[in-house]
């Protein structure tokens, strides 16, 4: 008859994987890779903001109230979205993994609840603001661009919107399922 002590001995005597010979070195290498990725992300975010500002001044958007408003809506919603993601990642990294499992779990639940609130409140507002800005820009696009390019912009923007909504929806679904699992 199997007792718990038998199980304990089976557990301890199970075949073990060898300690990777370059294990600690490979972890240090992976860590420098993570740091490099963070730097690249920051550079890309910075460059995006810079390009948007250059574009804004290049087309002298500030001379027309409506274009200025429309572009501000588009750029603003994009910046808010980038900002939310940036601070969310920062907040997630700040959650202390060395705390006990119950405290860590509580902190994670609170983090994901906030994320879900962002998805349900902020994300639709951001997408709506971006769409309004885009629609307000359409007469200006039609006036200044060839009809072929104008049609291309209209159709590609619809495709981009659908793809964006699909990916955001997928992310929400994933985070909801994580929240459900952690809350159990």
């Amino acid at each position, binding site marked *: 008859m199997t007792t718990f002590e038998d199980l304990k001995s089976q557990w301890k005597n199970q075949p073990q994987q060898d300690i990777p010979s370059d294990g600690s070195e490979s972890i240090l290498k992976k*860590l420098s890779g993570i740091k490099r990725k963070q730097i690249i992300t920051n550079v890309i975010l910075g460059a995006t903001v810079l390009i948007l500002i250059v574009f804004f001044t290049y087309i002298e958007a500030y001379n027309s109230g409506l274009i200025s408003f429309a572009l501000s809506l588009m750029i603003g919603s994009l910046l808010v979205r980038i900002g939310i993601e940036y601070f969310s990642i920062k907040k997630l990294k700040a959650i202390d993994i060395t705390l006990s499992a*119950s405290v860590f779990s509580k902190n994670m639940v609170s983090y994901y609840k906030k994320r879900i609130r962002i998805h349900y409140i902020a994300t639709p507002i951001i997408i709506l603001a971006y769409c309004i800005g885009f629609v307000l820009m359409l007469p200006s696009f039609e006036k200044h661009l060839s009809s072929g390019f104008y049609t291309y912009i209209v159709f590609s923007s619809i495709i981009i919107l659908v793809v964006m909504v699909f990916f955001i929806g997928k992310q929400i679904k994933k985070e909801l399922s*994580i929240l459900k699992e952690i809350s159990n």
Partner: protein
Amino acid sequence: MKSLDKQFKEVYEANYTKVNRLCLGYTNGDAMLSKDLTQDVFIKVWQHLDSFRNESNITTWIYRIAVNTCLLELRKKKPVRLSNHLNHIEASTENQNNDKELEINKLYHCIGRLKPENKSIILLELEGVPQKEIAEITGLSHETIRVRIYRIKKELTKCVRK
């Protein structure tokens, strides 16, 4: 900085097997996934090593990181199939008899059926971690741990006997 590298290497070598075995318990014995998880655990160990204050045993501290990492990461990754464990056993222990393989496989299966919190508790108990430290790792009271371990032991042995 050099001494931190050295300290990490020592900590890594002293605790790799324990952490890997714990991760195997969370992954139903999936060797590849548990190797990845073990690596994630040690990345976090390195990131927090300078904040370790010697208030608890370093192994207890590492177990805390391992439990949190395994529980969180497994929710993000795809579910683990128990059959993967058979490959791990076949690859690593050609001379082991089939009975032993089946026994450990059954143990993984029964651990896999437990609730996440109970899984953590019993994996630490199987590792021989004292109950006081299990309480510290999970954040539950010593008394709760004592009662839970008694119940899970019964549940687990009953499941394995089936």
